[in-house]
């Protein structure tokens, strides 16, 4: 039904054209679910946009190849034909539902724009499980939660009964507890209407749960294509193997570090007559840099673009022997002590003379973290975990209660968005060196310690003269860690440092943080909504719900026997890789 042949896309950024897709072939049958898996920059989202003819005009897209759907050729189609295709045949569900609805138009009107009658609008709002469709239809988008908005967007798309639905990471921006419901809703509706889904994700486990087939993309080329179950069980491309071995869930081994097959990514060279994974590949041979491997059909019906795919199984078993964590140094002292922390924020004034309503964010939180110990703080958005971290950091003043740090030394913070946390016009070395300035060390000593810190986080000290924009997102996160530890702190606070990362980067970052805190004897507070990451990194997990600590304890104890209802939802929300024993 949908057939993509030899799709090449070049997009311009800052005046330079880059190849984003380099010869992609894919067929999609009615009702089929194909997962598109790859890291950011692999070109997976570009495929989705190209299908709808929605590549941003400002990046001056150059497209060649063919995308055929029913009778339509989408590449090079006229604007009118493209509009018809978008209205009737291909719809999409976006990554971030918060921005994807027009804030100044009611839900009902936005639904009805493509010709739905008011009755149909209400019917569809009901079908996607929204309570009180009549009220929702009259409401403005900002009054709905993220999950509700995503339901509206799903209704909007599925009401057109499209042949193909492009779902670009439709749940990454949502709370873990609603992710599963949204995915089920999406696949159920698609099955009812025979809609094929192109499901874009970076998580192989989510792909494995939903899709019939999976296409692994790397650097704009297809690395592997085949039945999802077979690929997850025994990948034939080293990149797919890397993705698979780096992912972690509630059954990963806590005693050792996570395995990371591929090396730190630099700028991937995409074009050229060579395998574009060669720079990161642990099993590359000279042939790989001289010839581009075809997407060869294998005996088991799968396709993989690798000359050495027979070596991939060995690679996977070697990955299981990741190094153990170093011995933690520490002591009995507390790195952080929070005592009965209360905090509330002022809301809107009620009426003309009424008092301002106050929203309680934290009520009576007690928490201690020892030197060298890591406590993971989990909770859904709005539970107050970020506020607690900011209070622990001294960035926000608590209303009541006490915060004390070991020796009165202020903690360091690692934020979620590393790129935003670095000053764009200062070199990496200058930003790390800034923290040494109060110590009045000599210039040479300063340079030596900056280099040492960079080496500690696994970055070539030669990069100390680089600006943040010249580094990848993962490297930026390492730089913020280096900045935090160049003067060893006694407490490191991490605010969702891995939630925007794909699996291999997340694994590398967890390894780095887990090693550093043990070696340096730092206490660490690790805020996350990912229970699997919390279990791996932390000695204890604390669960925050509506501003109160409802549970705290050993990770495996909390996960095997969750007491609070919210903890139970969290545990069941972690996607697991469903496959028969993959190690073999």
């Amino acid at each position, binding site marked *: 039904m949908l057939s993509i042949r030899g799709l090449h896309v070049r997009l311009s950024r800052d005046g330079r054209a880059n190849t984003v897709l380099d010869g992609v072939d894919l067929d999609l049958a009615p009702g089929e679910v194909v997962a598109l898996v790859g890291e950011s920059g692999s070109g997976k989202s570009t495929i989705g946009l190209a299908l709808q003819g929605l590549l941003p005009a400002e990046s001056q897209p150059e497209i060649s190849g063919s995308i055929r759907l029913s009778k339509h050729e989408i590449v090079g189609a006229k604007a009118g034909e493209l509009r018809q295709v*978008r209205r009737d045949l291909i719809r999409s569900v976006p990554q971030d539902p918060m921005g*994807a609805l*027009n804030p100044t138009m009611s839900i009902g009107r936005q639904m009805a*724009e493509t010709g739905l009658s008011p009755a149909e609008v209400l019917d569809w709002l009901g079908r996607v499980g929204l309570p009180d469709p009549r009220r929702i239809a009259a409401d403005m988008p900002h009054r709905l939660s993220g999950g509700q908005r995503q339901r509206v967007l799903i209704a909007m798309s599925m009401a057109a009964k499209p042949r193909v639905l492009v779902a670009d990471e439709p749940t990454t921006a949502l709370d873990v507890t609603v992710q599963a419901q949204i995915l089920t809703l999406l696949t159920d509706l698609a099955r009812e209407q025979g809609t094929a889904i192109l499901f874009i994700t970076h998580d192989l486990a989510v792909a494995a749960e939903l899709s019939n087939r999976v296409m692994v993309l790397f650097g704009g080329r297809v690395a592997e294509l085949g039945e999802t179950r077979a690929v997850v069980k025994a990948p034939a491309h080293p990149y797919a193997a890397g993705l698979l071995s780096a992912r972690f869930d509630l059954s990963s081994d806590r005693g050792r570090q996570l395995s990371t097959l591929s090396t730190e990514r630099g700028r991937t060279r995409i074009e050229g007559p060579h395998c574009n994974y060669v720079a990161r590949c642990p099993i590359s041979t000279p042939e790989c840099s001289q010839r581009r491997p075809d997407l060869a059909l294998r005996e088991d019906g799968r396709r993989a673009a690798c000359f050495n795919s027979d070596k991939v199984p060995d690679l996977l078993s070697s990955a299981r022997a990741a190094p153990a964590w170093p011995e933690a140094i520490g002591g009995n002292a507390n790195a952080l002590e929070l005592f009965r922390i209360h905090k509330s924020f002022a809301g809107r004034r009620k009426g003309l003379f009424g008092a301002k309503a106050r929203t309680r964010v934290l009520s009576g939180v007690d928490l201690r973290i020892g030197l060298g110990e890591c406590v993971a703080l989990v909770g859904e958005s709005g539970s107050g975990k970020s506020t607690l971290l900011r209070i622990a950091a001294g960035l926000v003043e608590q209303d009541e209660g006490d915060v004390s740090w070991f020796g009165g030394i202020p903690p360091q913070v690692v934020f979620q968005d590393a790129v935003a946390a670095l000053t764009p016009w200062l070199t990496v070395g200058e930003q790390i060196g800034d923290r040494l300035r109060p110590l009045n060390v000599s210039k040479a000593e300063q340079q030596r310690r900056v280099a040492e810190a960079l080496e500690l986080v696994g970055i070539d000290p030669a990069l100390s003269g680089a600006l943040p924009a010249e580094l990848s997102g993962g490297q930026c996160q390492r730089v913020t860690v280096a900045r935090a530890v160049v003067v060893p702190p006694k407490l490191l606070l991490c605010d969702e440092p891995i939630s925007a990362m794909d699996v291999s980067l997340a694994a590398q970052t967890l390894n780095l943080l887990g090693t550093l805190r043990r070696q340096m004897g730092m206490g660490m507070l690790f805020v996350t909504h990912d229970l699997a990451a919390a279990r791996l990194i932390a000695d204890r997990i604390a669960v925050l719900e509506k501003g109160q600590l409802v549970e705290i304890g050993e990770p495996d104890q909390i996960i095997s026997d969750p007491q609070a209802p919210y903890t139970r939802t969290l545990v069941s929300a972690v996607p697991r890789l469903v496959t028969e024993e993959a190690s073999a």
Partner: protein
Amino acid sequence: MAPYLIKRIAGLAAVLLVMSFIVFCLQSIIPADPARSLVGPSAPQETVERLREEMGLNDPLLVQYGHFVSRLVEGDLGTSIRTRQPIAEDVLRYGPATLELILAAMVLGTALAFILAFAQATLARSGAIRVGMLTLGSVPIFLTALLLAYFLWFKLGWFPGSGRIDIRRFSGPTGFFVLDGLLLGRPEVTLGALRHLFLPALALSVPIAISVGRSLSSALVDVMRQPYIRTARGKGLSAGHIFLRHGLRNAASAPLAMLGLQVGLMFGNLLIVERVFAWPGLGLYTVQSFATSDLPAILGVALVFGAFYILVTMLVEIAQSLADPRIAL
């Protein structure tokens, strides 16, 4: 909405009180003696003294201010030295002409702003348009007004260049001649009034068009990149529909604020433009009051414009909240 209005009207009163205090202080500090200027330089000192006593000018300042405010509340802005009329009456006489001019300039300026913004968004040579806007924006208003008068009136004679209307001693029920012509069933009045309005309104609209146009076009560029525009395109809607229904309203907030600011600050330009085009409004009235050091009149008009500015700001906020439901008043 109701609490918002109450709050704003209370605010208006507070601001007016502060302004009245400033105006009062200015009146008391400036060495010119209102009694002396009322009776003229040749009158004997006793007459001046008697008048000072009558006018309460010898009372303590606080008492004088009390009188001043209580008169203000009754709508008494004092008496003009030049026209010997109550200033409130003068304001009512010349106000409609100025208000009509402001409204015309607003409509014209907004229309031009739209044209500029669209041209910048759609035409290939948007750089040239930007340079043109910059040049036009850098020309001071007295030059624009004089050039318009010189070419379109004096040289070409396309539009009249002075006064509000050609008919002598016309007066209508509202004082807005464009409206009066329609109310009285005399289209030639409306047409004539519009022709007279054109040049001064155009001169006043240039700064509005440029500032509102620039803020509209940058807001549109930003809005058209938002994910909800991609959602709308993904639904297969036409470009025009997306622009009008999804783009424009979301881009309205900043240009509305800019429009309010420009209209509120138009007073200075009104003085020049009304003078150049002999427009019988509050601007010309103020210019003439300056010429005769008619301080009470100048301060009275300043008070009226202060109130007008606050009113415009309020209307802008209401318009913004109508455009964007997330802005709650």
